[in-house]
């Protein structure tokens, strides 16, 4: 006897090709052991039968049926594509805008402008915390700050969207 008897787990693993390192040892044992050889043959028959597809096929026109149903679907993806294009357009406007600023007035102006914006934000915060002024008054006094914050938020959302969804309308290769 070159090996203890094979159990079900050994036989299944062998037929799955997962016992390549013990294959010769197992095959030698099978030559000597009727009991294990018989068990192996039973499993081999089952494995071979399992490779034959006995599942009923879908009707031949199944893809047509699916595509007819798809055609009735609302244009959800068109909206998605539109949003993506919008994101890309917004990002392009910001980039062109920054380029124009640099070309026309230089980066120093942009830095000063940013500093002013920051100071305005701080003052806006202080006015919100301590002022008894009415809300419309506060808003109108700080309109540039609010606009800058709004634009920054839109920019962040657009960039996030582009990063998440990839190039708008782009073709993705799907690995099946």
């Amino acid at each position: 006897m070159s090996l203890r008897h094979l159990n079900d787990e050994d036989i299944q693993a062998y037929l799955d090709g997962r016992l390549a390192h013990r294959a010769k040892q197992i095959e030698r044992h099978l030559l000597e052991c009727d009991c294990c050889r018989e068990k192996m043959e039973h499993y081999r028959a089952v494995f071979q039968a399992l490779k034959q597809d006995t599942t009923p096929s879908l009707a031949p026109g199944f893809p047509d049926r699916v595509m007819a149903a798809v055609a009735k679907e609302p244009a959800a993806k068109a909206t998605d594509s539109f949003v993506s294009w919008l994101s890309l357009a917004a990002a392009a406007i910001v980039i062109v805008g920054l380029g124009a600023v640099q070309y026309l007035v230089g980066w120093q102006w942009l830095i000063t402008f940013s500093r002013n914006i920051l100071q305005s934000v701080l003052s806006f915060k202080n006015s919100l915390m301590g002022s008894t002024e009415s809300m419309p008054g506060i808003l109108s006094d700080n309109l540039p700050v609010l606009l800058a914050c709004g634009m920054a938020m839109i920019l962040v959302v657009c960039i996030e969207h582009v990063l998440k969804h990839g190039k708008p309308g782009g073709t993705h290769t799907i690995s099946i």
Partner: protein
Amino acid sequence: MLSGDTEAFRELVESCQRLVAHIVYRMIPNETEREDICQEVFLKAYRNLGGFKHNCKFSTWIGQIAYNTSLNYLEKKKLVLFDDITPEEMTFDSLPADSPWPSEVSEAKELSECLKKEIAGLPGHYATIVTLYHLDEMTYDEIGKIMKLPDGTVKSYLFRARRMLKDRLLEKYTKEDLCH
């Protein structure tokens, strides 16, 4: 493709319909509703194409949709998947009785016909795993992703399912028939 190219989607339907049918047909006992469920699977995939992450194969992703759709159907119909029944607790009497069986199994085709009936009598999880492994040649990992099971559980279910099939066939036929 994700931008709404319906012709490209048709190609995906054609290439994945076999896999979807394998899962749905193994999970759903009601023959008349299987094809509708397969269609629902593809519609769900179409609606959610934007949510497909390229970190797995499309077949794995659509397999997950097929499996979840089947589970939802079973839940809605209050059908049991034999989840908590271990093979040891399952007696052959509890499985659908099949009749009349050929007295001799001399052809591989006949054996596969017999096996088809035996697979139909397996718990849905087992039948699905056996099919995905042997027919769709999926790995433990891919099957695990579709069915949300750890690799070890997939391996264990596959082992039990094949042992059950072997034992059930031996109950029906003589050893000589099986080993012809």
